[in-house]
Protein backbone atom coordinates (compact mmCIF):
# COMPACT_ATOMS: atom_id res chain seq x y z
CA UNK A 1 0.00 0.00 0.00
CA UNK A 2 2.65 2.49 1.05
CA UNK A 3 4.76 1.39 -1.87
CA UNK A 4 1.94 2.06 -4.29
CA UNK A 5 1.48 5.56 -2.90
CA UNK A 6 5.19 6.31 -3.04
CA UNK A 7 5.20 5.19 -6.62
CA UNK A 8 2.34 7.52 -7.43
CA UNK A 9 4.18 10.33 -5.66
CA UNK A 10 7.02 9.73 -8.08
CA UNK A 11 4.50 9.92 -10.90
CA UNK A 12 3.27 13.25 -9.58
CA UNK A 13 6.79 14.65 -9.35
CA UNK A 14 7.23 13.87 -13.00
CA UNK A 15 3.86 15.43 -13.78
CA UNK A 16 4.82 18.54 -11.87
CA UNK A 17 8.02 18.74 -13.88
CA UNK A 18 6.17 18.47 -17.15
CA UNK A 19 3.53 21.01 -16.25
CA UNK A 20 5.58 23.62 -14.47
CA UNK A 21 9.08 23.69 -15.89
CA UNK A 22 10.03 26.16 -18.54
CA UNK A 23 12.88 24.30 -20.12
CA UNK A 24 12.57 21.70 -22.84
CA UNK A 25 15.14 19.35 -21.36
CA UNK A 26 13.50 19.58 -17.95
CA UNK A 27 10.19 18.68 -19.54
CA UNK A 28 11.77 15.65 -21.17
CA UNK A 29 13.30 14.66 -17.83
CA UNK A 30 9.85 14.93 -16.25
CA UNK A 31 8.43 12.72 -18.97
CA UNK A 32 11.12 10.16 -18.27
CA UNK A 33 10.27 10.16 -14.57
CA UNK A 34 6.59 9.61 -15.38
CA UNK A 35 7.55 6.60 -17.46
CA UNK A 36 9.71 5.15 -14.67
CA UNK A 37 6.92 5.57 -12.17
CA UNK A 38 4.40 3.82 -14.38
CA UNK A 39 6.72 0.91 -15.07
CA UNK A 40 7.51 0.51 -11.40
CA UNK A 41 3.82 0.60 -10.52
CA UNK A 42 2.99 -2.14 -12.98
CA UNK A 43 5.77 -4.37 -11.75
CA UNK A 44 4.74 -3.80 -8.15
CA UNK A 45 1.30 -5.07 -9.08
CA UNK A 46 2.75 -8.39 -10.14
CA UNK A 47 4.99 -9.00 -7.16
CA UNK A 48 4.37 -11.89 -4.80
CA UNK A 49 5.92 -12.29 -1.40
CA UNK A 50 8.69 -14.89 -1.43
CA UNK A 51 8.24 -15.14 -5.18
CA UNK A 52 10.89 -16.32 -7.56
CA UNK A 53 11.90 -14.84 -10.87
CA UNK A 54 9.81 -16.38 -13.63
CA UNK A 55 12.56 -18.47 -15.12
CA UNK A 56 12.36 -22.18 -14.64
CA UNK A 57 15.40 -24.03 -13.41
CA UNK A 58 16.14 -27.62 -14.22
CA UNK A 59 16.01 -29.03 -10.75
CA UNK A 60 13.11 -27.12 -9.24
CA UNK A 61 9.40 -27.27 -9.70
CA UNK A 62 7.45 -24.22 -10.69
CA UNK A 63 6.19 -22.87 -7.44
CA UNK A 64 5.37 -19.39 -6.37
CA UNK A 65 6.83 -17.38 -9.22
CA UNK A 66 6.03 -13.72 -9.61
CA UNK A 67 3.52 -12.75 -12.26
CA UNK A 68 5.31 -12.77 -15.65
CA UNK A 69 2.63 -10.83 -17.51
CA UNK A 70 3.29 -7.36 -16.05
CA UNK A 71 6.98 -7.88 -16.67
CA UNK A 72 6.34 -8.60 -20.32
CA UNK A 73 4.12 -5.55 -20.60
CA UNK A 74 6.64 -3.33 -18.86
CA UNK A 75 9.33 -4.54 -21.24
CA UNK A 76 7.14 -3.30 -24.06
CA UNK A 77 6.48 -0.07 -22.28
CA UNK A 78 10.19 0.59 -21.62
CA UNK A 79 10.90 0.30 -25.31
CA UNK A 80 7.97 2.55 -26.18
CA UNK A 81 9.29 5.05 -23.65
CA UNK A 82 12.70 4.91 -25.27
CA UNK A 83 11.17 5.60 -28.66
CA UNK A 84 9.14 8.56 -27.43
CA UNK A 85 12.06 10.04 -25.49
CA UNK A 86 14.41 9.79 -28.43
CA UNK A 87 11.89 11.40 -30.76
CA UNK A 88 11.19 14.25 -28.36
CA UNK A 89 14.89 14.86 -27.81
CA UNK A 90 15.48 15.09 -31.52
CA UNK A 91 12.66 17.59 -31.85
CA UNK A 92 14.17 19.57 -28.97
CA UNK A 93 17.56 19.60 -30.65
CA UNK A 94 16.05 20.93 -33.85
CA UNK A 95 14.21 23.59 -31.86
CA UNK A 96 17.45 24.58 -30.16
CA UNK A 97 19.03 24.93 -33.54
CA UNK A 98 16.26 27.21 -34.80
CA UNK A 99 15.83 29.37 -31.72
CA UNK A 100 19.13 29.04 -29.89
CA UNK A 101 17.44 28.31 -26.57
CA UNK A 102 15.66 25.60 -24.63
CA UNK A 103 13.49 28.09 -22.79
CA UNK A 104 9.86 27.82 -23.79
CA UNK A 105 8.98 31.32 -22.68
CA UNK A 106 11.18 32.51 -25.50
CA UNK A 107 9.74 30.05 -27.97
CA UNK A 108 6.29 31.33 -28.69
CA UNK A 109 5.86 32.02 -32.30
CA UNK A 110 2.53 30.27 -32.15
CA UNK A 111 -0.41 31.68 -30.30
CA UNK A 112 -2.08 29.29 -27.86
Amino acid at each position, binding site marked *: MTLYILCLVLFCIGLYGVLRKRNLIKIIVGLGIIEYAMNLFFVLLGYRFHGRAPIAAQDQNILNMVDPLPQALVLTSIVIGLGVTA*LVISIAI*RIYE*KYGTFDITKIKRLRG
Partner: protein
Amino acid sequence: MNTATIIPFFVIIPLGAAFLISLLGRLIRRFSDIMILFSSALLFGLSIYARVLLSQASGKILVYKIGGWVPPFGICMVLDGLSAFMLVTVNVVAFFITLYSLSYMEKYTDKPKFFTLFSLMVCGMNGIIVTGDLFNLFVFLEIASISSYALVAFGTEAEELEASFKYAIMGSVASSFIFLGIAFLYGFTSTLNMADIARVLSIKPNAWIVSFVSVLFLMGFGLKAALVPFHAWLPDAHPSAPASISAMLSGILIKTLGVYALVRIFFNIIGATHNYLSILMFLGAFSMLVGVILALSQWDLKRLLAYHSISQIGYVVLGIGLGTPLGIFAGLYHLFNHSIFKSLLFLNSGAVDYAAETRDLKETGGLAKVMPVTGWTSLIASMSIAGIPPFNGFFSKLIIIIACVQKGCLGYALCAVIGSILTLASFMKVQKFVFFGQLKPGFQNIKEVPLTMKLSMICLAAICVIGGLMLLPSLKFFLDDAVSVVIQGTHYAASVLGVALNQ
Protein backbone atom coordinates in the same frame (compact mmCIF):
# COMPACT_ATOMS: atom_id res chain seq x y z
CA MET B 1 -9.18 -20.95 -42.25
CA ASN B 2 -12.45 -19.15 -41.89
CA THR B 3 -13.81 -15.74 -42.69
CA ALA B 4 -12.22 -14.19 -39.64
CA THR B 5 -8.82 -14.61 -41.29
CA ILE B 6 -9.43 -11.31 -43.03
CA ILE B 7 -8.98 -9.34 -39.81
CA PRO B 8 -5.18 -9.45 -39.29
CA PHE B 9 -4.64 -8.22 -42.84
CA PHE B 10 -5.81 -4.78 -41.82
CA VAL B 11 -2.60 -4.54 -39.82
CA ILE B 12 -0.30 -6.66 -41.96
CA ILE B 13 -0.85 -4.78 -45.22
CA PRO B 14 0.07 -1.26 -44.06
CA LEU B 15 2.89 -2.63 -41.92
CA GLY B 16 4.39 -4.58 -44.77
CA ALA B 17 3.97 -1.60 -47.06
CA ALA B 18 5.77 0.63 -44.56
CA PHE B 19 8.73 -1.72 -44.21
CA LEU B 20 9.01 -2.26 -47.95
CA ILE B 21 8.82 1.45 -48.71
CA SER B 22 11.54 2.28 -46.26
CA LEU B 23 13.68 -0.51 -47.68
CA LEU B 24 13.18 0.00 -51.38
CA GLY B 25 11.80 3.53 -51.62
CA ARG B 26 15.21 5.10 -52.09
CA LEU B 27 16.49 2.50 -54.51
CA ILE B 28 13.66 2.34 -57.00
CA ARG B 29 12.10 5.53 -58.27
CA ARG B 30 8.32 5.87 -57.90
CA PHE B 31 8.26 2.65 -55.87
CA SER B 32 6.91 4.38 -52.81
CA ASP B 33 4.11 6.03 -54.80
CA ILE B 34 3.01 2.79 -56.37
CA MET B 35 3.29 0.79 -53.16
CA ILE B 36 1.34 3.20 -51.00
CA LEU B 37 -1.37 3.58 -53.61
CA PHE B 38 -1.61 -0.17 -53.99
CA SER B 39 -1.77 -0.85 -50.26
CA SER B 40 -4.32 1.82 -49.50
CA ALA B 41 -6.53 0.78 -52.40
CA LEU B 42 -6.32 -2.79 -51.15
CA LEU B 43 -7.29 -1.69 -47.65
CA PHE B 44 -10.17 0.33 -49.05
CA GLY B 45 -11.52 -2.68 -50.88
CA LEU B 46 -10.86 -5.01 -47.98
CA SER B 47 -12.69 -2.82 -45.47
CA ILE B 48 -15.83 -2.86 -47.59
CA TYR B 49 -15.47 -6.60 -48.14
CA ALA B 50 -15.10 -7.07 -44.38
CA ARG B 51 -18.34 -5.19 -43.88
CA VAL B 52 -20.09 -7.52 -46.30
CA LEU B 53 -18.60 -10.57 -44.63
CA LEU B 54 -19.73 -9.33 -41.26
CA SER B 55 -23.36 -9.07 -42.31
CA GLN B 56 -23.22 -12.73 -43.30
CA ALA B 57 -21.58 -13.87 -40.09
CA SER B 58 -23.72 -15.32 -37.36
CA GLY B 59 -24.22 -12.97 -34.46
CA LYS B 60 -22.68 -10.10 -36.45
CA ILE B 61 -19.31 -10.59 -34.81
CA LEU B 62 -16.06 -12.10 -35.97
CA VAL B 63 -13.23 -13.02 -33.61
CA TYR B 64 -9.72 -13.94 -34.66
CA LYS B 65 -7.37 -15.57 -32.20
CA ILE B 66 -3.74 -14.68 -32.80
CA GLY B 67 -1.39 -17.61 -32.49
CA GLY B 68 -4.32 -19.85 -31.74
CA TRP B 69 -4.46 -18.91 -28.08
CA VAL B 70 -7.86 -18.79 -26.45
CA PRO B 71 -8.85 -15.18 -25.58
CA PRO B 72 -8.01 -14.37 -22.01
CA PHE B 73 -4.56 -15.87 -22.58
CA GLY B 74 -3.66 -14.69 -26.03
CA ILE B 75 -4.64 -11.59 -27.94
CA CYS B 76 -7.73 -11.67 -30.06
CA MET B 77 -8.99 -9.38 -32.76
CA VAL B 78 -12.64 -8.50 -32.86
CA LEU B 79 -14.63 -7.25 -35.80
CA ASP B 80 -18.14 -6.14 -34.96
CA GLY B 81 -20.50 -3.52 -36.32
CA LEU B 82 -18.74 -0.60 -34.68
CA SER B 83 -15.24 -1.56 -35.75
CA ALA B 84 -16.35 -2.38 -39.28
CA PHE B 85 -17.94 1.05 -39.50
CA MET B 86 -14.76 2.73 -38.25
CA LEU B 87 -12.60 0.65 -40.61
CA VAL B 88 -14.60 1.77 -43.62
CA THR B 89 -14.40 5.41 -42.52
CA VAL B 90 -10.66 5.31 -41.88
CA ASN B 91 -9.72 3.48 -45.03
CA VAL B 92 -11.93 5.48 -47.37
CA VAL B 93 -10.48 8.75 -46.12
CA ALA B 94 -6.95 7.37 -46.06
CA PHE B 95 -7.23 6.20 -49.65
CA PHE B 96 -8.29 9.59 -50.98
CA ILE B 97 -5.68 11.39 -48.93
CA THR B 98 -3.01 9.07 -50.33
CA LEU B 99 -4.14 9.93 -53.81
CA TYR B 100 -3.90 13.60 -52.93
CA SER B 101 -0.48 13.42 -51.31
CA LEU B 102 1.11 11.86 -54.38
CA SER B 103 1.27 15.31 -55.94
CA TYR B 104 1.08 17.48 -52.87
CA MET B 105 4.16 16.06 -51.20
CA GLU B 106 6.35 17.10 -54.13
CA LYS B 107 6.85 20.28 -52.09
CA TYR B 108 8.79 18.40 -49.44
CA THR B 109 11.94 16.36 -49.61
CA ASP B 110 12.17 12.65 -48.92
CA LYS B 111 8.81 11.32 -49.99
CA PRO B 112 9.56 7.66 -49.07
CA LYS B 113 9.90 8.59 -45.38
CA PHE B 114 6.64 10.46 -45.53
CA PHE B 115 4.81 7.50 -46.98
CA THR B 116 6.43 5.12 -44.51
CA LEU B 117 5.18 7.19 -41.62
CA PHE B 118 1.81 7.64 -43.26
CA SER B 119 1.45 3.92 -43.69
CA LEU B 120 2.45 3.29 -40.09
CA MET B 121 -0.18 5.76 -38.96
CA VAL B 122 -2.87 3.92 -40.90
CA CYS B 123 -1.56 0.68 -39.44
CA GLY B 124 -1.82 2.09 -35.92
CA MET B 125 -5.38 3.23 -36.43
CA ASN B 126 -6.49 -0.05 -37.98
CA GLY B 127 -4.78 -1.86 -35.13
CA ILE B 128 -6.67 0.19 -32.55
CA ILE B 129 -9.94 -0.51 -34.26
CA VAL B 130 -9.67 -4.26 -34.64
CA THR B 131 -7.97 -5.14 -31.38
CA GLY B 132 -9.78 -6.86 -28.56
CA ASP B 133 -7.08 -6.39 -25.97
CA LEU B 134 -6.56 -3.37 -23.78
CA PHE B 135 -2.77 -3.31 -23.72
CA ASN B 136 -2.62 -3.96 -27.43
CA LEU B 137 -4.82 -0.92 -27.90
CA PHE B 138 -2.24 1.09 -26.00
CA VAL B 139 0.61 -0.18 -28.16
CA PHE B 140 -1.13 0.66 -31.42
CA LEU B 141 -2.21 3.99 -30.00
CA GLU B 142 1.46 4.74 -29.46
CA ILE B 143 2.31 3.74 -33.04
CA ALA B 144 -0.34 6.06 -34.41
CA SER B 145 0.62 8.92 -32.13
CA ILE B 146 4.40 8.65 -32.57
CA SER B 147 4.04 8.66 -36.33
CA SER B 148 1.75 11.66 -36.10
CA TYR B 149 4.26 13.55 -33.90
CA ALA B 150 6.89 12.97 -36.53
CA LEU B 151 4.56 13.86 -39.38
CA VAL B 152 3.53 17.15 -37.80
CA ALA B 153 7.20 18.14 -37.71
CA PHE B 154 7.79 16.87 -41.23
CA GLY B 155 8.51 20.28 -42.72
CA THR B 156 11.18 20.95 -40.03
CA GLU B 157 10.40 24.66 -39.86
CA ALA B 158 10.43 26.46 -36.53
CA GLU B 159 6.67 26.58 -36.02
CA GLU B 160 6.20 23.00 -37.06
CA LEU B 161 8.82 21.80 -34.60
CA GLU B 162 7.30 23.82 -31.81
CA ALA B 163 3.80 22.56 -32.51
CA SER B 164 5.09 19.03 -32.72
CA PHE B 165 6.90 19.33 -29.40
CA LYS B 166 3.78 20.59 -27.70
CA TYR B 167 1.74 17.84 -29.28
CA ALA B 168 4.28 15.18 -28.36
CA ILE B 169 4.45 16.23 -24.73
CA MET B 170 0.69 16.42 -24.28
CA GLY B 171 0.23 13.21 -26.18
CA SER B 172 2.77 11.39 -24.01
CA VAL B 173 1.15 12.62 -20.82
CA ALA B 174 -2.17 11.39 -22.19
CA SER B 175 -0.63 8.02 -22.96
CA SER B 176 0.78 7.78 -19.47
CA PHE B 177 -2.66 8.40 -17.99
CA ILE B 178 -4.05 5.68 -20.19
CA PHE B 179 -1.26 3.32 -19.18
CA LEU B 180 -1.87 4.04 -15.51
CA GLY B 181 -5.54 3.30 -16.06
CA ILE B 182 -4.66 -0.01 -17.68
CA ALA B 183 -2.37 -0.82 -14.76
CA PHE B 184 -5.15 -0.17 -12.25
CA LEU B 185 -7.58 -2.29 -14.24
CA TYR B 186 -5.04 -5.10 -14.47
CA GLY B 187 -4.42 -5.00 -10.75
CA PHE B 188 -8.15 -5.10 -10.11
CA THR B 189 -9.23 -7.74 -12.60
CA SER B 190 -5.95 -9.52 -13.40
CA THR B 191 -6.73 -9.80 -17.08
CA LEU B 192 -6.19 -7.66 -20.14
CA ASN B 193 -8.71 -8.92 -22.64
CA MET B 194 -11.44 -6.31 -23.03
CA ALA B 195 -14.27 -8.79 -23.02
CA ASP B 196 -12.83 -10.58 -20.01
CA ILE B 197 -12.39 -7.31 -18.13
CA ALA B 198 -16.01 -6.47 -18.82
CA ARG B 199 -17.04 -9.89 -17.49
CA VAL B 200 -15.00 -9.57 -14.32
CA LEU B 201 -16.19 -6.02 -13.69
CA SER B 202 -19.79 -7.07 -13.99
CA ILE B 203 -19.27 -9.79 -11.39
CA LYS B 204 -17.27 -7.76 -8.88
CA PRO B 205 -19.12 -5.10 -6.93
CA ASN B 206 -18.91 -1.72 -8.52
CA ALA B 207 -16.22 0.19 -6.78
CA TRP B 208 -14.39 3.45 -6.46
CA ILE B 209 -11.54 2.14 -8.50
CA VAL B 210 -13.71 1.92 -11.58
CA SER B 211 -14.64 5.59 -11.31
CA PHE B 212 -11.00 6.50 -10.79
CA VAL B 213 -9.97 4.49 -13.81
CA SER B 214 -12.67 6.03 -15.93
CA VAL B 215 -11.50 9.49 -14.93
CA LEU B 216 -7.98 8.51 -16.00
CA PHE B 217 -9.24 7.21 -19.32
CA LEU B 218 -11.39 10.28 -19.80
CA MET B 219 -8.35 12.52 -19.30
CA GLY B 220 -6.16 10.41 -21.56
CA PHE B 221 -8.52 9.87 -24.43
CA GLY B 222 -10.00 13.33 -24.01
CA LEU B 223 -6.53 14.74 -24.59
CA LYS B 224 -6.21 12.63 -27.70
CA ALA B 225 -9.66 13.65 -28.92
CA ALA B 226 -9.05 17.34 -28.11
CA LEU B 227 -12.19 17.87 -26.06
CA VAL B 228 -12.19 21.39 -24.76
CA PRO B 229 -10.36 21.51 -21.48
CA PHE B 230 -7.64 19.43 -23.11
CA HIS B 231 -7.61 20.96 -26.58
CA ALA B 232 -4.54 23.20 -26.43
CA TRP B 233 -2.38 21.13 -28.77
CA LEU B 234 -4.80 20.85 -31.63
CA PRO B 235 -4.92 24.40 -33.05
CA ASP B 236 -1.12 24.39 -33.23
CA ALA B 237 -0.53 20.89 -34.49
CA HIS B 238 -3.14 20.75 -37.21
CA PRO B 239 -2.22 23.89 -39.14
CA SER B 240 1.50 23.19 -38.92
CA ALA B 241 1.38 19.77 -40.51
CA PRO B 242 1.41 19.25 -44.27
CA ALA B 243 -2.16 19.57 -45.55
CA SER B 244 -2.69 15.89 -46.18
CA ILE B 245 -1.60 15.15 -42.62
CA SER B 246 -3.87 17.84 -41.24
CA ALA B 247 -6.65 16.09 -43.07
CA MET B 248 -5.66 12.76 -41.55
CA LEU B 249 -5.30 14.18 -38.05
CA SER B 250 -8.49 16.12 -38.14
CA GLY B 251 -10.48 13.73 -40.22
CA ILE B 252 -9.80 10.40 -38.60
CA LEU B 253 -6.95 10.32 -36.10
CA ILE B 254 -8.67 12.22 -33.30
CA LYS B 255 -11.79 10.14 -33.86
CA THR B 256 -10.06 6.80 -33.80
CA LEU B 257 -7.74 7.58 -30.92
CA GLY B 258 -10.25 9.58 -28.97
CA VAL B 259 -13.87 8.92 -29.74
CA TYR B 260 -13.69 5.29 -30.81
CA ALA B 261 -11.56 4.32 -27.82
CA LEU B 262 -13.79 6.25 -25.45
CA VAL B 263 -16.91 4.63 -26.82
CA ARG B 264 -15.38 1.18 -26.73
CA ILE B 265 -14.16 1.53 -23.17
CA PHE B 266 -17.05 3.40 -21.65
CA PHE B 267 -19.90 1.56 -23.28
CA ASN B 268 -18.53 -1.92 -23.81
CA ILE B 269 -16.11 -2.44 -20.95
CA ILE B 270 -17.02 -0.29 -18.01
CA GLY B 271 -20.67 0.03 -18.91
CA ALA B 272 -22.03 3.53 -19.27
CA THR B 273 -23.95 4.90 -16.37
CA HIS B 274 -25.91 8.10 -16.22
CA ASN B 275 -23.03 10.06 -14.68
CA TYR B 276 -20.52 9.26 -17.40
CA LEU B 277 -23.04 10.11 -20.05
CA SER B 278 -23.80 13.49 -18.58
CA ILE B 279 -20.07 14.25 -18.30
CA LEU B 280 -19.66 13.32 -21.96
CA MET B 281 -22.64 15.44 -22.97
CA PHE B 282 -21.36 18.41 -21.03
CA LEU B 283 -17.86 18.13 -22.50
CA GLY B 284 -19.34 17.73 -25.96
CA ALA B 285 -21.54 20.79 -25.76
CA PHE B 286 -18.77 22.82 -24.16
CA SER B 287 -16.23 21.99 -26.86
CA MET B 288 -18.85 22.62 -29.51
CA LEU B 289 -19.40 26.21 -28.40
CA VAL B 290 -15.85 27.10 -27.38
CA GLY B 291 -14.41 25.67 -30.60
CA VAL B 292 -16.72 27.56 -32.85
CA ILE B 293 -16.39 30.85 -30.97
CA LEU B 294 -12.59 30.66 -31.12
CA ALA B 295 -12.84 29.80 -34.80
CA LEU B 296 -14.76 32.96 -35.62
CA SER B 297 -11.83 35.22 -34.90
CA GLN B 298 -9.22 33.34 -36.93
CA TRP B 299 -7.71 34.64 -40.13
CA ASP B 300 -5.45 31.70 -40.93
CA LEU B 301 -7.44 29.25 -43.04
CA LYS B 302 -6.05 26.05 -41.54
CA ARG B 303 -6.18 27.34 -37.97
CA LEU B 304 -9.84 28.20 -38.48
CA LEU B 305 -10.50 24.70 -39.73
CA ALA B 306 -8.66 23.26 -36.74
CA TYR B 307 -10.92 25.09 -34.30
CA HIS B 308 -13.90 23.80 -36.23
CA SER B 309 -12.60 20.28 -35.69
CA ILE B 310 -12.87 20.82 -31.95
CA SER B 311 -16.39 22.06 -32.38
CA GLN B 312 -17.46 19.17 -34.61
CA ILE B 313 -15.93 16.60 -32.28
CA GLY B 314 -18.16 18.23 -29.69
CA TYR B 315 -21.20 17.36 -31.82
CA VAL B 316 -20.08 13.76 -32.11
CA VAL B 317 -19.48 13.39 -28.39
CA LEU B 318 -22.76 15.12 -27.56
CA GLY B 319 -24.63 12.73 -29.82
CA ILE B 320 -22.97 9.68 -28.31
CA GLY B 321 -23.34 11.02 -24.79
CA LEU B 322 -27.11 11.19 -25.19
CA GLY B 323 -27.09 7.44 -24.80
CA THR B 324 -30.34 6.92 -26.69
CA PRO B 325 -30.25 4.83 -29.87
CA LEU B 326 -31.12 7.83 -32.00
CA GLY B 327 -28.44 9.95 -30.36
CA ILE B 328 -25.72 7.37 -30.86
CA PHE B 329 -26.88 6.83 -34.42
CA ALA B 330 -26.61 10.55 -35.08
CA GLY B 331 -23.24 10.80 -33.36
CA LEU B 332 -21.69 8.03 -35.41
CA TYR B 333 -23.28 9.33 -38.59
CA HIS B 334 -21.87 12.75 -37.87
CA LEU B 335 -18.48 11.16 -37.20
CA PHE B 336 -18.50 9.63 -40.68
CA ASN B 337 -19.71 12.84 -42.32
CA HIS B 338 -17.23 14.96 -40.46
CA SER B 339 -14.35 12.74 -41.54
CA ILE B 340 -15.37 13.25 -45.13
CA PHE B 341 -15.99 16.96 -45.23
CA LYS B 342 -13.30 18.04 -42.82
CA SER B 343 -10.62 16.15 -44.72
CA LEU B 344 -12.01 17.65 -47.91
CA LEU B 345 -11.74 21.14 -46.41
CA PHE B 346 -8.17 20.55 -45.30
CA LEU B 347 -7.31 19.23 -48.74
CA ASN B 348 -8.84 22.39 -50.22
CA SER B 349 -6.76 24.54 -47.92
CA GLY B 350 -3.73 22.55 -48.99
CA ALA B 351 -4.59 23.19 -52.61
CA VAL B 352 -4.87 26.91 -51.92
CA ASP B 353 -1.54 26.80 -50.15
CA TYR B 354 0.00 24.80 -52.99
CA ALA B 355 -1.14 27.13 -55.72
CA ALA B 356 -1.24 30.54 -54.06
CA GLU B 357 1.51 30.03 -51.42
CA THR B 358 -0.52 31.68 -48.68
CA ARG B 359 -3.17 30.70 -46.18
CA ASP B 360 -4.04 34.11 -44.85
CA LEU B 361 -7.66 35.01 -45.48
CA LYS B 362 -6.78 38.67 -45.85
CA GLU B 363 -4.43 38.02 -48.73
CA THR B 364 -6.48 35.65 -50.83
CA GLY B 365 -9.64 36.31 -52.77
CA GLY B 366 -11.49 35.32 -55.89
CA LEU B 367 -9.63 32.06 -56.26
CA ALA B 368 -12.71 30.26 -57.57
CA LYS B 369 -12.14 31.89 -60.92
CA VAL B 370 -8.67 30.45 -61.39
CA MET B 371 -9.14 27.24 -59.43
CA PRO B 372 -12.67 26.10 -60.25
CA VAL B 373 -12.38 22.55 -58.90
CA THR B 374 -11.02 23.62 -55.55
CA GLY B 375 -13.56 26.41 -55.33
CA TRP B 376 -16.61 24.28 -56.00
CA THR B 377 -15.57 21.33 -53.87
CA SER B 378 -14.86 23.61 -50.96
CA LEU B 379 -18.24 25.25 -51.43
CA ILE B 380 -19.87 21.83 -51.14
CA ALA B 381 -17.80 20.97 -48.07
CA SER B 382 -18.56 24.29 -46.40
CA MET B 383 -22.26 23.94 -46.95
CA SER B 384 -22.03 20.43 -45.64
CA ILE B 385 -20.22 21.39 -42.43
CA ALA B 386 -22.57 24.30 -41.88
CA GLY B 387 -25.58 22.04 -42.22
CA ILE B 388 -27.32 23.29 -45.34
CA PRO B 389 -29.97 20.91 -46.66
CA PRO B 390 -29.21 18.48 -49.34
CA PHE B 391 -25.73 17.67 -47.99
CA ASN B 392 -24.83 15.05 -45.43
CA GLY B 393 -23.91 17.41 -42.58
CA PHE B 394 -27.46 18.69 -42.49
CA PHE B 395 -28.98 15.28 -41.80
CA SER B 396 -26.63 14.30 -39.04
CA LYS B 397 -26.91 17.63 -37.24
CA LEU B 398 -30.66 17.53 -37.58
CA ILE B 399 -30.81 14.06 -36.05
CA ILE B 400 -28.56 15.15 -33.18
CA ILE B 401 -30.89 18.04 -32.42
CA ILE B 402 -33.97 15.84 -32.70
CA ALA B 403 -32.38 13.30 -30.36
CA CYS B 404 -31.62 16.06 -27.85
CA VAL B 405 -35.21 17.23 -27.94
CA GLN B 406 -36.49 13.70 -27.61
CA LYS B 407 -34.48 13.14 -24.49
CA GLY B 408 -35.66 16.44 -23.12
CA CYS B 409 -32.28 18.15 -23.13
CA LEU B 410 -33.51 21.40 -24.65
CA GLY B 411 -30.47 23.33 -23.47
CA TYR B 412 -28.11 21.07 -25.35
CA ALA B 413 -30.32 21.24 -28.43
CA LEU B 414 -30.14 25.02 -28.25
CA CYS B 415 -26.34 24.83 -27.99
CA ALA B 416 -26.23 22.65 -31.09
CA VAL B 417 -28.36 25.10 -33.03
CA ILE B 418 -26.26 28.07 -31.97
CA GLY B 419 -23.08 26.19 -32.84
CA SER B 420 -24.47 25.40 -36.25
CA ILE B 421 -25.36 29.02 -36.96
CA LEU B 422 -21.94 30.25 -35.90
CA THR B 423 -20.33 27.59 -38.10
CA LEU B 424 -22.35 28.85 -41.02
CA ALA B 425 -21.19 32.39 -40.32
CA SER B 426 -17.54 31.50 -40.20
CA PHE B 427 -17.69 29.47 -43.39
CA MET B 428 -19.47 32.32 -45.17
CA LYS B 429 -16.39 34.30 -44.26
CA VAL B 430 -14.08 31.65 -45.68
CA GLN B 431 -15.95 31.47 -48.94
CA LYS B 432 -16.13 35.22 -49.28
CA PHE B 433 -12.48 35.89 -48.61
CA VAL B 434 -10.87 32.94 -50.34
CA PHE B 435 -12.88 31.84 -53.30
CA PHE B 436 -15.28 34.63 -54.20
CA GLY B 437 -15.04 38.36 -54.36
CA GLN B 438 -12.35 40.32 -56.10
CA LEU B 439 -9.46 38.37 -57.56
CA LYS B 440 -6.38 39.93 -56.07
CA PRO B 441 -3.61 40.97 -58.42
CA GLY B 442 -0.73 38.57 -58.30
CA PHE B 443 -3.03 35.56 -58.36
CA GLN B 444 -3.94 36.08 -62.01
CA ASN B 445 -1.74 33.41 -63.41
CA ILE B 446 -1.82 30.65 -60.81
CA LYS B 447 -2.85 27.28 -62.11
CA GLU B 448 -5.23 24.65 -60.86
CA VAL B 449 -3.60 21.87 -58.83
CA PRO B 450 -2.44 18.60 -60.46
CA LEU B 451 -4.78 15.84 -61.54
CA THR B 452 -4.60 13.43 -58.60
CA MET B 453 -5.31 16.22 -56.14
CA LYS B 454 -8.34 17.29 -58.16
CA LEU B 455 -9.54 13.71 -58.45
CA SER B 456 -9.46 13.03 -54.73
CA MET B 457 -11.20 16.31 -53.92
CA ILE B 458 -13.96 15.59 -56.42
CA CYS B 459 -14.51 12.08 -55.05
CA LEU B 460 -14.76 13.32 -51.47
CA ALA B 461 -17.19 16.03 -52.55
CA ALA B 462 -19.27 13.40 -54.27
CA ILE B 463 -19.43 11.40 -51.05
CA CYS B 464 -20.58 14.58 -49.29
CA VAL B 465 -23.43 14.95 -51.73
CA ILE B 466 -24.57 11.36 -51.64
CA GLY B 467 -23.85 10.92 -47.94
CA GLY B 468 -27.44 11.77 -47.16
CA LEU B 469 -28.46 8.60 -48.94
CA MET B 470 -27.10 6.56 -46.05
CA LEU B 471 -30.38 7.18 -44.30
CA LEU B 472 -32.12 5.04 -46.89
CA PRO B 473 -33.22 1.72 -45.43
CA SER B 474 -31.04 -0.36 -47.74
CA LEU B 475 -27.85 1.33 -46.59
CA LYS B 476 -28.89 2.04 -43.04
CA PHE B 477 -27.72 -1.35 -41.76
CA PHE B 478 -24.19 0.01 -42.07
CA LEU B 479 -24.83 2.36 -39.18
CA ASP B 480 -27.45 0.33 -37.38
CA ASP B 481 -25.06 -2.50 -36.63
CA ALA B 482 -22.59 -0.07 -35.14
CA VAL B 483 -25.31 1.51 -33.02
CA SER B 484 -26.54 -1.82 -31.75
CA VAL B 485 -23.03 -2.73 -30.58
CA VAL B 486 -22.88 0.45 -28.52
CA ILE B 487 -26.39 0.06 -27.17
CA GLN B 488 -25.87 -3.50 -26.05
CA GLY B 489 -23.05 -2.27 -23.86
CA THR B 490 -21.45 -4.89 -21.72
CA HIS B 491 -23.25 -7.64 -23.58
CA TYR B 492 -20.13 -7.32 -25.75
CA ALA B 493 -18.23 -9.52 -23.30
CA ALA B 494 -20.59 -12.43 -23.58
CA SER B 495 -20.73 -12.32 -27.36
CA VAL B 496 -16.97 -12.04 -27.87
CA LEU B 497 -16.11 -14.77 -25.43
CA GLY B 498 -18.92 -16.94 -26.73
CA VAL B 499 -17.80 -16.72 -30.34
CA ALA B 500 -14.16 -17.18 -29.42
CA LEU B 501 -14.74 -20.29 -27.41
CA ASN B 502 -17.01 -21.91 -29.93
CA GLN B 503 -14.62 -21.66 -32.84
